[in-house]
């Protein structure tokens, strides 16, 4: 064992346990690092510390009940996860929801995405040592949470979507508040650039770090902003538009560099796109029922269904095998974080410990999403 660890240069490799409790793993992720000095030779993720067997639990729940479990996967994209289940049931039963529902869902999605990216921005700053960004990001995100709270009744685990429509109608303040918020946030977003994107220390630390090629991104299934930073056109909103994404104009942010800075930049640019999507929709929310007529007990036809949506971290998929009962036979949640984590070892080899923190931050891992 000892002999194996001694490398060609005569240095001895050693192990460091990063996590399960570590400031930069953002949750209970444990990385077993094999280090040569400060250089990373191997990263081995050990996960499952917050495994709650959500897939098994879903096998005993009705389709309406499954929705609230998805809140607890990627809690920062709770709304989008909810929508995946709702869309799956609607598509399987061929229920057409009203335009109002579609538009509201889209606006909510983008607000959630904004909030998620803001949190990520604060956290990446903190991981890099600029703790102040964390507080600035929370200032902005808190206001989104307030808007959410007023309409959905919860700040994080919203459970606002339900198969066939929405839980509540919009709060009467919603439109005004969102517009006020966008006006406010547009003045704050350039500060993000001044504090981090333009900062020479930050760019030095992220450029060229953790390069992920396009072929590897596809092979590892790295989706979301992380995948698009490598040029992988994987935005489900574009490739398979759902809800109201087919009626808004927005750009899919694609980069070619594939390094940590590209991943950073793609998220910051995505915030601008989210703002633009909300602005296009907020003034013309059509009237209509918020709930399509549904049977009290939802039973999916026999067969299997797959629904993909674009969450803040990438492609979230729900795979349901139905045997015709009111509970599914098998549910699988394809979580974006799980695939994104699998690439960590590949792209962080040969870098330093500090780079691993940057790579992990730009991959934007949410541990409950990985562990399910």
């Amino acid at each position: 064992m000892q002999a194996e660890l001694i490398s060609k240069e005569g240095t001895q490799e050693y192990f460091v346990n990063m996590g399960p409790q570590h400031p930069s793993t953002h949750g209970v992720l444990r990385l077993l690092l094999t280090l040569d000095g400060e250089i990373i030779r191997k990263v081995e993720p050990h996960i499952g510390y917050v495994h709650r067997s959500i897939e098994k639990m879903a096998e005993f729940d009705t389709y309406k009940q499954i929705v609230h479990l998805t809140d607890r996967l990627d809690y920062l994209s709770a709304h989008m996860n909810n929508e995946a289940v709702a869309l799956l049931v609607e598509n399987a039963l061929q229920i057409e929801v009203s335009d109002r529902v579609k538009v509201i869902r889209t606006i909510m999605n983008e607000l959630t995405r904004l909030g998620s990216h803001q949190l990520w921005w604060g956290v990446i700053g903190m991981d890099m040592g600029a703790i102040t960004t964390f507080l600035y990001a929370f200032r902005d995100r808190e206001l989104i949470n307030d808007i959410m709270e007023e309409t959905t009744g919860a700040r994080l685990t919203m459970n606002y979507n339900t198969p066939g429509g929405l839980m509540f109608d919009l709060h009467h303040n919603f439109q005004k508040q969102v517009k006020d918020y966008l006006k406010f946030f547009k003045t704050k977003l350039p500060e993000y650039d001044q504090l981090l994107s333009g900062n020479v220390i930050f760019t030095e630390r992220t450029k060229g770090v953790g390069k992920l090629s396009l072929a590897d991104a596809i092979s590892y299934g790295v989706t979301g902003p992380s995948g698009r930073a490598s040029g992988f056109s994987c935005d489900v909103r574009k490739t398979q538009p759902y809800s109201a994404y087919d009626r808004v104009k927005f750009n899919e942010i694609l980069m070619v560099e594939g390094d940590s800075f590209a991943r950073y930049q793609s998220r910051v640019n995505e915030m601008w796109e989210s703002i633009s999507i909300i602005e296009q929709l907020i003034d013309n929310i059509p009237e209509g029922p918020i709930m399509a007529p549904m049977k009290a007990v939802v039973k999916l036809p026999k067969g299997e269904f797959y629904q993909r949506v674009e969450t803040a971290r990438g492609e979230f998929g729900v795979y349901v095998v139905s045997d015709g009962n009111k509970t599914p036979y098998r549910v699988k949640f394809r979580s974006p974080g799980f695939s994104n984590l699998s690439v960590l070892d590949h792209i962080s080899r040969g870098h330093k410990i500090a780079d691993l923190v940057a790579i992990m931050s730009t991959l934007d891992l949410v541990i409950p999403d990985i562990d399910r």
Partner: protein
Amino acid sequence: MENEKLRQLISSWEPSVELIDGPQYLEVVVPSAQFRALAEKLRFDNQTQFDYMFNMTCVDWNDHFQTIYHLESTKLNHALVLKAKIADHNQPEVDTICDIWRTAELHEREVFDLFGVKFNQHPDLRRLLLTDEWVGHPLRKDYVDEVNMVLR
């Protein structure tokens, strides 16, 4: 490529497959023995080029297992569901594909952990989510845990 063409192509490659038109995707069920060869063809053949595996899981059908692979081609924009039918319910085994689609490495470990399906030639087949000393495979239909599971 159209589903119809895919059907013809795949059945010409591997006559033993069972082709089902699912509600969304074409479903290709192949016996576990022929699975690895077909997967390689689907990935590397110029007509199919399924380079993106966006989901992988497994289903316990009480008498047999099916490992399920959702495949998509980012170049040719077609998708299908590949299923390997593992007839042996007691000692399920199937060839690994984690060298073809790298994302499968963790996914296969997860399936091994939760279903007990053994993936031959997998480089590092260990439990992923559960502790190493866990007994049983929770997502199997015959799994019982009287402490943590309350059946309704």
